[in-house]
């Protein structure tokens, strides 16, 4: 295929997902400039791989590349928080205190508080919540993007939510 035609086909397929790509990069790097660099890098990388893309879920395909690019970047630029291995505990939903005040807290949580709490989660949990709650991906898509099993997606997502709830409850408890 001539270079121009190939590039145009790529731009048509990939650029509609640019916001999703940047948003994931922004949540994983927690920094605008880094997110822009990573997104650009990932798009160039995707362009190299584009001949191997034969249809299917373009957004998941692109986000897989963005995620890999982010982790490579994080690995080179930061302490190895992103490579933590977590023991997958399935039944870890116990939260301290009654649930009713917690529901109040969650119902009144504002964007800034949520943003901060989400940003403070370890990468491995944050990416699960970003893909599920922000990108609204199915478990299968998340499993594909993150290269883990469906069971792991489910248990990590459960732990991510528990940790986020704990952090929100503690945060607001302090204010009173």
């Amino acid at each position: 295929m001539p270079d121009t035609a190939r590039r145009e086909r790529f731009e048509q397929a990939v650029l509609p997902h640019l916001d999703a790509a940047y948003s994931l990069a922004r949540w994983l790097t927690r920094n605008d400039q880094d997110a822009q660099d990573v997104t650009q890098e990932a798009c160039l990388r995707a362009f190299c791989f584009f001949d191997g893309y034969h249809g299917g879920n373009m957004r998941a395909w692109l986000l897989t590349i963005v995620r890999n690019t982010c982790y490579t970047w994080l690995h080179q630029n930061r302490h190895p928080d992103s490579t933590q291995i977590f023991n997958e505990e399935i039944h870890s939903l116990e939260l301290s205190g009654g649930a009713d005040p917690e529901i109040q807290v969650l119902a009144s949580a504002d964007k800034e508080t949520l943003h901060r709490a989400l940003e403070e989660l370890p990468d491995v949990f944050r990416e699960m919540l970003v893909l599920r709650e922000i990108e609204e991906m199915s478990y299968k898509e998340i499993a594909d993007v993150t290269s883990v099993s469906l069971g792991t997606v489910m248990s990590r997502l459960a732990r991510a939510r528990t940790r986020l709830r704990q952090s929100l409850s503690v945060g607001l408890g302090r204010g009173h």
Partner: protein
Amino acid sequence: MSCELTQHYVPGYLDGELDLVRTIEMETHFKSCPACARELESQQALHAALQRSSLAFAAPAGLRDRILSSLRTSSGVEVQERKIKWPSLNIWQWAGAFGVLALFSISGWQLTNHLRAPSSDQRIAAEVFSSHVRSLEGDHLMDVVSTDQHTVKPWFDGKLDFSPPVEDLASDGFPLVGGRLDYVEEREVAALIYQRRKHFINVFVWPNPTGTNSTQAIESRQGYNIMRWSRGGFQFWAVSDVAVSDLAEFVQLLETHISSESK
């Protein structure tokens, strides 16, 4: 349905990832159990808070142009040598697995086993196959690493609602190397990992609700062999890239060990 199991499935329920039967079981349980209903309410509150806060970022104005112009100035060859070094080409493995799965659904399966409906077998085959491929990709082949069946078996206690039969076949050339929790047909299953020289065999085990025993059936796809059978109230699916004859021998040995153990 127990509270423990219900709470475990609350996220799946909330995300619309459960099948109809389990969804109805969950809803029945919520009506009779205030504690689980409260747990659901908390998770719903978190979900609602995340949804209403619109936490997605939009790409900044200039980024699109920056990317377009870098695409125009970079040829594919140059890009590969850019500043980021790639640890592995996971995307290709992913794309490969995806392609194989697509083939599965197009070609369908010629199954002779009458235990379950073909569509269900086809779905399970695709799931165990993709789990097998995925387990070999990253660092998630094993949750518990042990060649001792007396370590692996108790490890599953409390993680599953059943106790899978665990046998070491090291003396027969198929050492047990570990275990993992996996997910097939929207339920937690035990995955036991055996090794044959440099190759791995994933054996997925979960209870067989009909309780009937079935003969072994084998299917080959894309260089992988998948073998399934039911015995002693469990169903088993073994997936590997070892030769068909090796896999058949392995399954025979496993059957013999399990039945002698249960006598």
